């Protein structure tokens, strides 16, 4: 178990280093920050001074080695835009994303398990057909379109909900709903499929021969066995949300890491881009470990 965690951690560190290397060079392809941060009519001397100050005058491989050296000392660089630690900026934005992701994925998983199980319990029923239709629409509707239409109707038209930003509970409603759509749609399909095969399995026959009540057969015996694939898909969806829902955060002005990332790329704030990548990569690593451990909790046959 401990050796398993160690093995996973060492693999992850290697891939994070690879990722950071890639990001370091790719962001520098976007152009020179001095073109953005200095006035258009600034002199060549001023530009050179700005470059020297931020280490941008060095050859790129020297910049990279310097970055690695700073990383080892847990120095993640300064934000050009905000003049403070880039990591601090990233860590301020991340909890906003995390809160939204946790709420969206928890609600959609719980709802999908309920709807999917009931649909599988009576395949072909009216409920099953409606659930299939709704989940298909949810899984395939483009989130930016739903978000914009939602703002038009509920914020601009009816004036019931705020258009963007954070603060009250009302600010949560539209971003959460939009983020839940796709996970809910996909998970209903997964739960329905795995529940159908679980309900047809021999141990369900045993449960019926034992005279167990129907809801105990469905939720106690079949559902417990169908959770593994659900956890796999839900985990995958959670990963994409933790990564920052760039589109949804941008549309609703949610100050999360996705919005920070896209803003920093546009503004060539290299240190912040690298820090956000490091934060989300670490979060995804922890999430994946948690999913693997959850497998072992759900299925006693899995041991690490």
């Amino acid at each position: 178990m401990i050796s398993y965690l160690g093995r996973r951690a060492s693999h992850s560190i290697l891939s994070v280093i690879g990722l950071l290397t890639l990001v370091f060079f790719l962001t520098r392809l976007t152009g020179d920050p001095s073109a953005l941060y200095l006035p258009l009519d600034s002199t060549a001397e001023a530009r050179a001074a700005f470059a020297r100050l931020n280490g941008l005058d060095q050859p790129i491989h020297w910049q990279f080695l310097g970055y690695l050296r700073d990383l080892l000392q847990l120095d993640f660089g300064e934000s050009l835009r905000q003049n403070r630690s880039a990591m601090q900026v990233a860590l301020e934005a991340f909890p906003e994303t995390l809160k939204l992701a946790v709420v969206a994925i928890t609600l959609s998983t719980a709802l999908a398990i309920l709807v999917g199980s009931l649909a599988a319990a009576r395949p072909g029923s009216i409920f099953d057909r409606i659930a299939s239709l709704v989940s298909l629409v949810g899984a395939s509707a483009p989130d930016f379109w739903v978000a914009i239409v939602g703002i038009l109707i509920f914020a601009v038209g009816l004036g019931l909900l705020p258009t963007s930003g954070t603060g009250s509970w009302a600010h949560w409603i539209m971003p959460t709903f939009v983020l839940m759509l796709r996970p809910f749609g996909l998970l209903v399909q997964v739960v329905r499929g795995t529940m159908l095969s679980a309900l047809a399995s021999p141990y369900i026959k045993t449960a019926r021969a034992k005279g167990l009540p129907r809801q105990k057969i469905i939720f106690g015996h079949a559902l417990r066995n169908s959770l593994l694939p659900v956890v796999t898909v839900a985990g995958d969806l959670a990963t994409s949300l933790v990564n920052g829902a760039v589109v949804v955060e941008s549309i609703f002005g949610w100050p999360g890491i996705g919005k920070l990332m896209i803003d920093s790329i546009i503004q060539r704030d290299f240190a912040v881009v690298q820090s956000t990548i490091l934060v989300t990569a670490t979060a995804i690593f922890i999430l994946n470990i948690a999913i693997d451990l959850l497998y072992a909790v759900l299925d006693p046959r899995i041991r690490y």
Partner: protein
Amino acid sequence: MSNATILKVEGLTVDFLSDDQPVRAVDDVSFHVSRGETLVILGESGSGKSVSTSTVMDLVDCPPGDIVAGSCLFDGVELSGLGAEARRSINGRRIAMIFQDPLAYLNPVYTVGRQIEEVYESHGAESGKGARAKTIELLRRVGIPEPQNRVDFYPHQFSGGQRQRVMIAMAIALKPDILIADEPTTALDVSVQAQILDLLRDLQRETGMALIMITHDLEVAASMADRIIVMNGGKVVETGIAREVFSNPQHPYTRRLIAALPHGNAAEAPNRRSTAIAGETLLKVEHLTKHYELASGAFSSKRTFKAVDDISFEVRRGETLGIVGESGSGKSSVARMLLGLNAPSAGKAVFAGENIFDMNGKRLMAFRRKVQMVFQDPYGSMNPRMRVYSIISEPWVIHRDILPKDRWKARVAELLELVGLLPEHAERYPHQFSGGQRQRIAIARALASEPELIVCDEAVSALDVSIQAQVIDLLADLRTRLGLSYIFITHDLPIVRHFADRIMVMKDGRIVEEGQTAALFGAPRHDYTQSLLQAVPQPKWLTQAQ
């Protein structure tokens, strides 16, 4: 034994709805069983025997099942059309059931204790500590060692026989009036089978429950039955007192079944051993060994598991060597190494003067042509998307020198006829055949590369008794006509009695006894061989007379 009839099924007719038309699975079946009595329902696969009893417990899904007619009267209550709550008060409490494959029929994610306690709780009999104490007592009763610890184990942590004991414990928890056992020992080794059957008999004596046992195995049937009904094609073809049915079968189907029994009467059974005196040595195996390194845990050092432990034997041309052993004896590992599917840890095997473990490239190709394998599950070992023609002709695609392409079609037809099928079967797919026919196709495929040795790994174990005899007849006939040699691997000692020339008994990776078939059956020297022979169930009327 009281004569009070507890269950009376009359005129039961069940259809299964398939794509085009309903298929009648059970046709006008009637039977009854009394307290303390054992009724055996005997039939081969597809005879409708399981559907009949599943209907009694309302375990047939409707649709696709459809109960067309019939009544099930249980202790004065009509079971068909019973409401969900009334049904729950009978299932598990008054009628209980155990199944063929306990690993699949136990829920993998709950401890066995939890699954047994659930029976008490859901019927309001016991809960909490009381249920747990009773569960431990039950596990002790069915022979699980250290029940106070094992109660918290999961199904996969038990052996096959122990899992069936757990299933039995779950079924008898509330002392039901009827226990239905659907092929309860089919997946088990013969020595474990004997223990489970003993346990069922003891429990029946203790509780006075009625036992309905479903089986395809005539010996199991004979050893358990007071009365017997024989089913074929969804109909009851014969019914009566077990002893009379066995000694004087009336229906032609029953007669055929009993004649196909591989070890009914040694004198009457046809001898399928090779008549030719064995020729030169074809295969000589020396000190063959296969070790597996077991993963080391944090607190245990590395251990090795000896699947095959230093065995030597030889096969002569035209001879059949039977390798007999229970699961885990290493018999299949031997086959896999001889075919080059697994590498041995040590030892050599000389085939036609050359060590097969040293071969590579062209030589290995040439060797593989000469040694073919027939597997237990012919369906699993055939590509379902290939036609029979492609399956049989595939060896010729690989070994180009066997046959020119313009002769393939004629040769496939010839091979199909050789194994008792029709030339037009070449255009069909594997799923369009029965189990026995598929095994014939597998044999035709093996013959296509003109082998000298065929390794049969449990080749007839999955087949019905009457089909087993036909396939063995076919193999014996091919041996005579084509001069083949066989290594015939099985867990079922009686099957090889009239087929193998020599028998090798394996246990825990070693050979415990080896000898000419007649000598080995006549006077087994090793304890293990003797226990295997004795584990074959004896008819109830004989054991009761003793």
